[in-house]
């Protein structure tokens, strides 16, 4: 048989049944605002900490939603709670409260 070069690549699909988005859900109960994020990225663009290390609130929310809890948390570890992201967020999301609660959830998982 002639090789046409086609092959099945591994799926990139996220299996929602296997995703562990428990942290997201837990935080959403305390700060429902987290569900309002539409990933515009304003917060990451203005972030104070991102000059030193990749800190991105936007990515962290996306990652949490997909169950990549560790990566999400590592993305917030250097946040200084400076509050710039609150002021730029077009959705008026209480970002700092979400960050604190995500990091607290991590402390509890330890």
């Amino acid at each position, binding site marked *: 048989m002639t090789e046409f070069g086609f092959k099945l690549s591994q799926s990139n699909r996220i299996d929602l049944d296997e995703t562990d988005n428990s942290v997201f859900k837990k935080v959403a109960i305390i700060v429902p605002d987290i569900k309002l994020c539409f990933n515009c990225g304003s917060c990451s663009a203005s972030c104070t900490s991102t000059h*030193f290390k990749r800190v991105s609130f936007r990515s962290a929310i996306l990652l949490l939603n997909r169950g990549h809890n560790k990566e999400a948390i590592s993305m917030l570890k250097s946040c200084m709670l400076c509050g710039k992201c609150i002021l730029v967020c077009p959705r008026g999301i209480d970002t700092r409260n979400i960050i604190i609660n995500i990091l607290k959830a991590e402390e509890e998982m330890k």
Partner: protein
Amino acid sequence: MKERLIFGYDPFVLPFLIGMIFIIAYLLVGTVRIILSLNNNEKKQLFRIFIPVNAYKIVKDIILDCLLHVKIFKRNLLLGYMHSSIAFGWFMLIVLGHIEVMLFTPQRNGIFYYPIFFRYFVMETEETLQGAFFFFVMDFFLLIILSGIALAIYKRFRSHRLGMKQTTKLRLGDNIALYSLWLIFPLRLLAESFTADISGGSFITKGINDLFHSFVSNPANTLPVWWAYSCALGLFFFTLPFSRYMHIPTEILLIVLRHVGINATSLRDGYSEAEIYSCSRCGICIDACPMSFEKKDVKFTSVYFIRLLRRREIAEQPADLCLMCNKCVEVCPVGIDSTKLKLICREINNGAISFDYTPVKYNSPLKREKLLYYGGCMTNLTPSISTAISKILDKAEISYVHLDKDQTICCGRPLLLSGNLKGARELINKNREAIISSGCTTLLLSCPICYKMFKEEYDLKGIEVVHHSVYINNLVKSKRIVLKKTTDTCVYHDPCELGRGSGIYEQPRELLSSMMLLKDSPLQNNESICCGGSLGSISMPFAKRKIITGGSLDNLLTNDPDLLVTSCPLCLKTFTPLNSKRTADIAQVVSEQMIN
């Protein structure tokens, strides 16, 4: 005047006597417990009450605050009268009662109940004129107290008439204590009127006796009234520990602890315990708190937060929500530092979060200049301010270095206010190192949040820390820059951290007045209302902040100024979208008004 009853005793004194013994024992145990819960150092500090200066201050404060309630007077005359008439009047009745016993029946000295029920046990004699003076003053003070009680009753049902929009809600213990307190003095009046024709009286007791002579002089009616008076007293003493009136004895202890230099370090140490019980729930902090713009959020104000602590209930929600604007602390007549208590709550909740700031550092070595400018995160977001500053400094021909032009390390105050001291320390050290190694002698700041932080937590010896509103004002005064006048009018908003936080009220006003007409707003200086943007709150959602911003704006725009001027990038950012007029930072205004 001489004794009417040979034994100087009647069973009706029992309710009072038992209540009195109970409350004295209770207070003794309470005081000992609080003193025991102080650590060794603090116990040693207690001996400072014997230093004459401290003793003088303690006595003075007890008289001014606990008896005369001068601080409440200053805020609100009627409310002050209500508190001080009851407190001071009652105190005088007790003192005078004792003097009477000493003078007329010295053999009964030291019997607890005797001065209280003196009028029941004595009768007039030929030389009654000796006592006439006392009859008069006793009646006089009783009248004063009764007028205070009448005001208190009125306030409970019509609080706004005493200039208070809201008054505190009560629970059972408070209610019983409250009603028994209200009853004590009318009953005393009745009781003394009943015996006024036997033991003497003055204009009111005697008056009532004359008026209703047939009823009151009927001996069968006398004893029940004295019983009722004694029962009201006893009931009050028994409910005291479970009511807000615990503030009466506790405040004295608090004043002592404060003057020997003890401070709260945990939620239940001696000092905070004394603070919690000293709250009289006067409710002054309710109207002061910006959260009370929304009626349903009144429950988060300091008075209720303190009540939660007292009941050992969870106080996390109000502690996290508070804007830390410090207005409640500023107005509290007892001087309770409730924001400190909230901070302690937060430390318990958030102190354990481990942040990681290892990669955080300034990378470029700095040029050495005398003046170092640090804008901070918020100024980074409002470049109009730093641009204005650079324009002004250029005009004044002052060279400077901008520490955080490209990258900022946060001053750490938001972290500190979130209760995470560990993280805050790390950031402090990083900034401190950069500032000290820059060799500057003056650190210029645009953000009041940073200003307070650098001033209080950084230990920058030899470096002058100055906010731009003060710095620019000095430039104008020393004629380094010259400003022209405009016909516009403005109002000035005191940022919480610059005004109440750092005591800077005058310089920004002086600076503004040199350019335009500065209008007043009803609540300004230390009464200014937070803009609603405060980073002091951990959990306040946007919708609530907006309401506070609106309320604060209403106050500022009362006299219809053309311009709202502030000196904080965060206030600027918060007000701008909601303000129908122009909002500007003081530095922006100056940079526009400079003459070449």
